[in-house]
């Protein structure tokens, strides 16, 4: 297809570079510098989609971010992305796009039947219809709504593109590179301020690219280009195009998405697709301009009806005609500019002006050019289904209530201008109290809450001269406050046409006997009649009307619909618009890729990965790893075809019979020093520490102030005022903060310092009956006998020239030691242990065997200390000192904590000694009791006991201490299991704890 609607010359596109693309499978050509929209229009394509609710044909309405219709599914480099505006997507070689919300095709769409059923789809249809019967919800209503809802399909594939985040600080952030943005950025930059200038589009200049103005003897476009090139050279200025500031957050933090690669066929090597900027600006100048608003009339959603400013932009920027027989329907002078531009390109437009007898320079110019103008005329309805073919027009009475006789005139597009709406989204997001400006019939920013100011059209100022003056002045003033400099740039001379006042007319009345749909919200198909129904049904607050009718709730966030919606509500309610108020503007201003929000924090990068110094050894020895918080720990070491169950059983069994070694580097370690170190331990641990001699370790439990167990671990007295505390892997960071809290805020008089040494020490647990034999080989010069290093003893020793700490502590319940060396020596230590352990049949064991060992010993861990249990629940009540106070002690006397039938940890064994018990299952007395079956407790941890070769679990059970010997049922509806079990002591193996002392 040839580009029939492309002008012979003109526009800012590069006509030397032809670009081919596909839309709905058909091949077309455009030029470099086109958007998908401009290229399609150049090819005469106006049908691009189907509407959300009624599946009415959809064309193009705007030329940029305000576009409500032309949402397409984009295919680029093997990936697909929904919710792309054709008016924003720049054309690249090989681009493919399809229409959304239509089946089987955009030309023949089955869903369009909704258009004829529209009487059944009024405001609140979903709320009214899908309420009952309840049982229909999951199987009928929800799938139906899901299928019908949404525009486009998100890919379920992993996104291969990279997205980056960047943090930036500046004196001044300027959002938008139109006249006000350029002037203020330039004035501030010249006065030494650090400036970021952000432009959403690919081209800088905003309306200067399309308006016929003269600044300092240059065209607006030339002036913009000269300012931009100068700014780009300045070291204190960052100029960014394709970058949209979409959110204004607290304390002058703004977020901007930079589309680095979206306009290219593929992302360049080492480049991200998009970059999200978090910008903390001292001052913000909002120069986001304004968006033309439509006039509401019958069938105003027909393809070919579009904003007048968009028609002009397509001509001036892209060299494209939106039609060859246009009607301009306007209530102000802007429409004339579009008509004049058409005329310059040899197209005769007909202007319908709602005003009675307006006078201005541009109207004179249009008249002199011989453009046909009809005053006091309106478009009553567009005619045509997939494209405008003609328009019903009529004269309108001076009071704008009555229509004259209907005339039908041929046309192929209707360009509408209902005056301009300042883009106040960012100002409103910042907390600015917006106010209604009667003169322009729109809201403008009012009192600032944060350091922001709004300039130019975004502030309701529509003359260039005034905009530039105030922007130069503001840029200078703000920069002076920051830089204390006084370099003022001279102000250029401006020539522009003076406008006459606009007509506040916004909605064409229905002619007698006609019931045309008059749309307010083009993306969500909200018509005048829908708002009327909502108000009749009693909705009053604009926020409620919005949610009930979905006015302004689509992805375009009502950029073209909000004000007309407010006008309608205020008219029916007989209130002024400011009394109705506007709905809250929320970020993002325009949709942002989820990928950009996530940034690099995906997959393995979603959190840091911490590895022990022995990690590569584990890898080489077939370790299968598991995430333990941010750590990677060996879960088991696979031999041959072993599975998890077989391997962990082998490893655990070897600890019980020979000796095993486990990497315990991940345990939290805190170094505690100071004259009051012992006192601190006395206060944070439940047990007493004053009598712990140097060279001894002690097990301790710490509580939160509410009496719940926070963490447990061993702490060793290295010297009089020096302790080495260990925490669980999971709670390491919290425990450190906890200690710092008490030392800094509650007991600052204590002379103690705490510091994390988790990463400074590598740790290996050597466990099993033969562990002492191994230790003797590793430390031949140290006395590691039962007398030399008794249970809970500590010594410093020499490991073949490396300084080591040996703690005789045990988690497995076997005779065991933990050896620590400085992290750099971790691998050396590990390899020595393996080397010398060979004769004792040493095997490394992972977290799965570690769990098995501790569970069958009845040692509580994270699954019991889960933030819901007190010491008694974990059979730790023996560690509660009666003599001293400690954190959380007072809470333990709460009634619930001292109840006779308080829950307690118990052991659970299946009666058949075979069936594994799923963790998280519930314990009940009667498996056949009616639901909800009263729960007596829950399984906290399960293992296969290697000691007895049968399943064994720990449970937290109500009245646990009196339940030993009882027969109960374990129920797991998730796994569909009912298992008869017996309650036993939690200390299943070696209940007297003889092995650790042997």
């Amino acid at each position, binding site marked *: 297809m040839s580009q029939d609607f492309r002008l012979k010359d003109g526009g800012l596109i590069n006509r030397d570079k032809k670009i081919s693309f596909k839309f709905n499978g058909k091949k077309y050509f455009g030029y470099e510098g086109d958007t998908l929209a401009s290229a399609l229009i150049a090819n005469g394509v106006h049908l691009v989609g189907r509407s959300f609710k009624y599946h009415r044909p959809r064309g193009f309405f705007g030329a940029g971010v305000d576009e409500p219709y032309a949402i397409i599914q984009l295919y680029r480099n093997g990936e697909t992305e929904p919710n792309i505006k054709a008016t924003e997507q720049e054309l690249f070689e090989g681009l493919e796009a399809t229409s959304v919300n239509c089946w089987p095709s955009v030309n023949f769409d089955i869903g369009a039947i909704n258009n004829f059923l529209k009487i059944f789809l009024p405001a609140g249809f979903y709320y009214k219809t899908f309420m009952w019967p309840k049982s229909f919800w999951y199987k009928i209503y929800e799938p139906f709504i899901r299928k019908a809802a949404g525009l486009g399909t998100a890919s379920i594939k992993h996104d291969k593109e990279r997205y980056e985040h960047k*943090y930036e600080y500046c004196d001044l952030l300027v959002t938008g590179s139109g006249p006000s943005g350029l002037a203020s950025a330039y004035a501030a930059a010249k006065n030494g301020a650090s400036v970021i200038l952000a432009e959403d589009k690919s081209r800088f200049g905003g309306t200067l690219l399309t308006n016929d103005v003269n600044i300092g003897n240059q065209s607006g476009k030339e002036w913009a280009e000269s300012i931009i090139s100068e700014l780009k050279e300045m070291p204190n200025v960052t100029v960014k195009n394709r970058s949209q500031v979409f959110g204004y*957050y*607290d*304390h*002058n*933090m703004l977020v901007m998405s930079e589309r680095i690669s979206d306009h290219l066929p593929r992302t360049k090597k080492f480049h991200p697709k998009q970059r999200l900027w*978090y910008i*903390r600006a001292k001052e913000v100048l909002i120069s986001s301009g304004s968006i033309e608003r439509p006039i509401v009339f019958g069938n105003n959603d027909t393809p070919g009806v579009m904003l007048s400013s968009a028609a002009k932009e397509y001509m001036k920027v892209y060299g494209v005609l939106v039609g060859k027989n246009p009607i301009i329907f306007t209530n102000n002078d802007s429409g004339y500019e579009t008509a004049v531009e058409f005329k310059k390109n040899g197209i005769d437009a007909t202007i319908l002006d709602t005003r009675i007898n307006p006078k201005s320079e541009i109207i004179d110019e249009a008249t002199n050019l011989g453009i046909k103008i009809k005053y006091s005329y309106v478009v009553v309805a567009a005619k045509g289904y997939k494209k405008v073919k003609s328009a019903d027009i009529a004269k309108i009475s001076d009071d704008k209530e009555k229509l004259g006789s209907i005339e039908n005139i041929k046309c192929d597009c209707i360009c509408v201008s209902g005056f301009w709406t300042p883009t106040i989204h960012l100002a409103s997001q910042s*907390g600015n109290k917006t106010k209604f400006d009667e003169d322009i019939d729109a809201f403008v920013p009012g009192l600032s*809450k944060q350091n922001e100011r709004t300039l130019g059209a975004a502030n309701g100022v529509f003359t260039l001269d005034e905009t530039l003056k105030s922007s130069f002045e503001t840029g200078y003033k703000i920069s002076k406050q920051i830089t204390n400099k006084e370099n003022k740039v001279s102000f250029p001379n401006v020539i522009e046409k003076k406008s006459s006042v606009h007509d506040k007319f916004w909605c064409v009345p229905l002619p007698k006997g006609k019931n045309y749909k008059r749309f307010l919200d083009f993306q969500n198909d909200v018509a005048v009649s829908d708002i009327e129904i909502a108000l009749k049904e009693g909705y009053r607050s604009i926020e409620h009307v919005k949610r009930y009718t979905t006015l302004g709730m689509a992805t375009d966030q009502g950029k073209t619909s909000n004000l007309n919606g407010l006008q309608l509500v205020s008219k029916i309610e007989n209130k002024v618009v400011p009394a109705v108020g506007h709905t809250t503007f929320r970020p993002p201003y325009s949709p942002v890729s989820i990928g950009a929000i996530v940034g690099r924090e995906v997959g393995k990068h979603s959190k840091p990965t911490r590895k022990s110094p022995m990690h590569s050894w584990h890898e080489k020895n077939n370790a299968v790893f598991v995430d333990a918080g941010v750590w990677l720990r060996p879960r088991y070491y696979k031999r041959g075809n072993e599975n998890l169950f077989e391997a962990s059983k082998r490893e655990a069994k070897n600890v019980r019979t020979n000796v095993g070694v486990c990497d315990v580097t991940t345990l939290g370690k805190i170094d505690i020093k100071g004259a009051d170190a012992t006192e601190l331990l006395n*206060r944070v641990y439940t047990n007493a520490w004053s009598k712990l001699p140097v060279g001894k370790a002690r097990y301790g439990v710490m509580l939160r*102030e*509410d009496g719940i167990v926070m963490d447990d671990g061993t702490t060793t007295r290295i010297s009089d005022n020096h302790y080495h505390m260990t925490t669980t892997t999971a709670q390491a960071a919290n425990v450190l*903060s906890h200690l*710092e*809290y008490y030392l*800094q*805020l*509650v007991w*600052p008089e204590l002379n103690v310092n705490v510091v994390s040494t988790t990463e400074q020490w590598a740790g290996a647990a050597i466990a099993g009956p033969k562990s002492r034999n191994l230790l003797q080989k590793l430390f031949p010069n140290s006395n590691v006998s039962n007398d030399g290093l008794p249970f809970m003893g500590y010594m410093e020793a020499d490991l073949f020239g490396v300084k080591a700490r040996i703690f005789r502590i045990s988690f497995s319940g076997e005779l065991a030691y933990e050896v620590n060396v400085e992290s750099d020596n971790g691998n050396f230590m590990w390899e020595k242990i393996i080397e010398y352990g060979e004769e004792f049949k040493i095997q490394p064991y992972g977290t799965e065997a570690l769990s098995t060992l501790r569970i069958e010993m009845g040692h509580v861990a994270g699954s019991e200390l889960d933030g819901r249990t007190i010491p008694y629940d974990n059979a730790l009540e023996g560690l509660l000192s009666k003599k*001293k*106070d*400690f954190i959380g002690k*007072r*809470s333990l006397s709460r009634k619930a904590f001292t109840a006779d039938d308080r829950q307690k940890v118990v052991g659970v064994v299946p009666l058949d000694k075979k069936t594994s018990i799923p963790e998280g299952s519930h314990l009940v007395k009667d498996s056949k009791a009616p639901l909800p079956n009263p729960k007596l407790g829950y399984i906290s941890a399960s293992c296969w006991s290697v000691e007895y070769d049968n399943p064994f679990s720990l449970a937290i059970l109500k009245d646990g201490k009196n339940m030993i010997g009882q027969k109960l049922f374990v129920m797991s509806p998730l796994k569909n299991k009912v298992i008869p079990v017996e309650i036993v002591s939690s200390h299943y193996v070696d209940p007297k704890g003889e092995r650790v002392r042997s």
Partner: protein
Amino acid sequence: MLHIKCPHCGMRSQNEFSYGGDASVKRPQLGSEVSDQDWDNFVYNRKSLRGKHWELWQHLSGCRQWIKVERDTATHEIFKTLKASEEIS
């Protein structure tokens, strides 16, 4: 994202800090007799204020100091920050 002035490090972004609750809560003295009501007030009962509020933050990814911050809970405006050792005036 808030911008908080750490009295030790200067202006830093919120993501370096962790929130620590009401700064006006005083822990009862260790070993003292505390009524059930007073203990409940210390452990559980907090005012959910709209407006100025003294609260604790820890500069977790910075100097690790606990600090006191006077913040408006409705507007997020921060009026004053203090070191842990400084009394709320």
